[in-house]
C-alpha cells in the first residue's frame, strides 16, 4: 500500500486537521443505571448517571437517543426535571431495544446521545395559567415540565388533565399527591369503566369543558398519541385557547437525531431539529403534523 502522505502538499495539510477533529455525531456516551423500577405492566423507570456531565444539560421537552449495543437506538424523552446528578427515563417495552432495556438492572450501562431537540419555552409560559393535557405515555415528557413548573415561581394556576386506558396504566400516580400539594389541580380519566374506579370515565376531552379557563391567561401543553391532538385542540378552541397558546410535543421515528436521516420529517420540517416541541401556530403550514 502506498502512503499518500508523501504526495500531500502544504495547502492540503491545512484542511486536514479540521476534519480530523470532527467528532462522529453517532458516538454515544455511557450512563450507569442507578435504579430500575417497574412502574406499570409495560413501563419501567430508570435513573441514569451519565459519565459525561454534559448530558445533564437538558431542558424539559428534549430527548436522548438511547441505545444498547446489538439492539440499536431509539429516541426517548427525558422525564425528570433538570438540576440533579441523574436523569430519569420512563420506557415502555414495545420492541427489541426497549424489551432489552427492561432486562437491565442497577449498575448496567445505557448508551446515550443528546440531548436533542427543542424544549418548552418556560419564559413564554411565565405569568400564565398552565394547563397540562396528557394522554397515555404523553405524561412521560410532560412530567419533566410539570416538575420544573411546580418547583419554579411565577406561573399562574396549574392544572393537569391526564387520560389513560385503564387504572393500571396510570403512570406516576404515587407522585400525584405531591403535585397536588405543590399547587397542581390533578384530574384523571380512564377510557372505559373499570371495577373499583370511581373517577371520571371517558377520553381526556370530556374533562376540558368543566375546567375554569381564563381567556388570554392560559397556556395549554398537549402531549399524547397521534389521534388525541385534533380532538383536544378542538375542545381548547371552544374554550378560547388558540393555536398561539398551545404547545405540543410530537413523536416521530428517528435514527440520527442530527437532522440527516430523514425519518422524523413532517413535510419539510425535521422534528429532531425544529421539534419535538412546537407551538401549534407554527404547525399551520405542515399538514402532516397532526
Amino acid at each position, binding site marked *: 500500500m*502506498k502512503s*499518500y502522505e508523501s*504526495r500531500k*502538499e502544504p*495547502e*492540503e495539510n491545512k*484542511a*486536514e486537521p479540521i*476534519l480530523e477533529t*470532527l*467528532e*462522529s*455525531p*453517532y*458516538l*454515544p456516551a*455511557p450512563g450507569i443505571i442507578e435504579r430500575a423500577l417497574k412502574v406499570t405492566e409495560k413501563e419501567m423507570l430508570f435513573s441514569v448517571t451519565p459519565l459525561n456531565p454534559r448530558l445533564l444539560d437538558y431542558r424539559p421537552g428534549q430527548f436522548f437517543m438511547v441505545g444498547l*449495543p*446489538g*439492539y*440499536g*437506538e*431509539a429516541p426517548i424523552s427525558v422525564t425528570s426535571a433538570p438540576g440533579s446528578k441523574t436523569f430519569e427515563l420512563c420506557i415502555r417495552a*414495545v*420492541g427489541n431495544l*426497549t424489551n432489552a432495556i427492561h432486562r437491565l438492572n442497577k449498575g448496567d*450501562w445505557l*448508551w446515550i446521545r443528546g440531548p436533542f431537540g427543542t424544549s418548552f419555552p418556560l419564559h413564554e409560559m411565565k405569568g400564565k395559567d398552565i394547563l397540562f393535557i396528557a394522554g397515555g405515555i404523553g405524561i412521560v415528557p410532560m412530567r419533566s415540565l410539570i416538575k420544573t413548573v411546580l418547583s419554579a415561581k411565577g406561573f399562574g394556576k396549574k392544572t393537569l388533565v391526564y387520560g389513560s386506558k385503564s387504572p393500571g396504566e396510570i403512570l406516576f400516580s404515587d407522585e400525584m399527591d405531591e403535585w397536588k400539594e405543590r399547587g397542581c389541580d390533578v384530574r384523571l380519566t380512564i377510557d372505559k369503566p373499570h371495577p373499583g374506579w370511581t373517577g371520571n370515565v371517558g377520553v381526556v376531552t370530556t374533562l376540558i369543558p368543566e375546567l375554569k379557563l381564563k381567556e388570554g391567561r392560559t397556556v395549554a401543553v398537549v402531549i399524547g*398519541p*397521534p389521534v388525541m391532538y385534533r380532538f383536544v385542540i378542538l375542545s381548547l378552541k371552544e374554550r378560547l385557547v388558540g393555536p398561539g397558546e398551545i404547545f405540543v410535543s410530537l*413523536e*416521530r*421515528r428517528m*435514527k*440520527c437525531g*442530527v*437532522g*440527516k*436521516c*430523514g*425519518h422524523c*420529517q*413532517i*413535510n*419539510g420540517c425535521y422534528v429532531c*431539529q425544529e421539534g419535538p416541541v412546537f407551538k401549534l401556530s407554527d404547525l399551520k403550514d405542515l*399538514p*402532516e403534523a397532526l
Partner: protein
Amino acid sequence: MRNIEQFRYITAAGLDKLVSRLIEDYTVFGTIKKDGFPAFSKITDVKELELAQTPTHLSAKEFLFPQRETLLKFDIRNNIHEAVIEAKEQVIIGLHSCDIHAIALMDRVFAEGRPDANYLARRNKTIIIGSDCMPDNFCFCKSMGTMNAEEGFDLFLHKVKNGYLVRVGSKKGGRLLSRYTATLRPTAGKFRELDESMKIREASFAAKLDAGVEELPAIYEGAYESPVWDKIGAICTGCGSCNNVCPTCYCFDIKDEVRPNLREGARVRVWDGCTLEDFAKVAGGHNFRKTRAERLRHRFNRKFRYLSDRFGELFCVGCGRCSRTCLVKINIVEVTNEIIRESKRAGRK
C-alpha cells in the same frame, strides 16, 4: 464567458496515462460497460474505463455515501464503543454535470448543523473528474439548470477529436494534471469543436419541464392536494428504486450487527427510502405516511420544495434516473408537468 486559462488539451493517450497513474496511487472508480450499459465501478486497468455519453442507472453516490457503512464498533462485554470513520483517497472519473451538482448538494446536507464526519472525511479525500454527456429521453438537466457544472469538480473532460479539452476546476486538479500527464495549450479549433458539440447537445433534449425552476416550489406547494398523488400512488409498487438511484436521496437507517460470538459488533448505516412502507412508522405501530400516494408526494416535495426551503436550492438535478428505473413508468417530468398544467388552469380561473 469562458475562461480559457482554465483549459488544457490532452491526447487520448495522455488521458490513458493520467488514469493509469491515478490507478497506481488512488482507488479509482469510473464508468465501465456492464451488460451493455454504462455503470460506475472500481477500475484497476485503464482499459476498463469507457467514458459514457448516456447516464449510468445508479448514481455515483455510493462512493461518498456507501449503501452500507460502519459508524461504530462496539465490544459489549468491555463496554467499549469506538467511532469508525472510513475514508480513503479516491478518484471518481466520468461524472456528468448532473452528478457533480448532486454531490455539491450532498456536501451541503452533510455539513449542515451537526456535521457528519463520516461523509465529510470521505468527501475530502475524493477527487472528482467529470466528463461530458448527451441526453437520453429521460434527461432533463437543461430544465433544472444543471446542464453544465461551473464548479464542484477537480477536472472536467470534454471530448474533442483525438483527445480531450480538460477544464481545471481546482488547484488540486491542476496539480494532478501537470504531475501525471503531458498537457498542451488548446488551440482555438478545439474550442470551436467544443462549442459545436455543446450546441448539438443543447438541442438534443426530449424531456422538458413546462415551468421555470424558480416557480417549482410554489407550484408544488399548491399541488399538495392534487389528484396526481392518488393517481401515481395507485400504480406505485413501493419498491424504493427511485430513492436508491437518486443522486440526492440521502435518507438512511442505522442498525446494529452482532458477530456470532455475541460480544462484538458494529452499528452500521444503510440507505433507506421514504417511499418504503415502514419509513415513517413508529414503535407503537402508527405510520405517519400510510399510503403510497402520501409517500410519493413526500419524495417529490423533497426534491422540489422541502429541501429548497432549507437549502435554497432544488434537490432534483434532472438526471432522470428515477423515471428510467421505475418499474411502473412513473415519470418525474410527466408528473411535474401535470402539476404545472393544474397550477396554470387554477391560475386562469
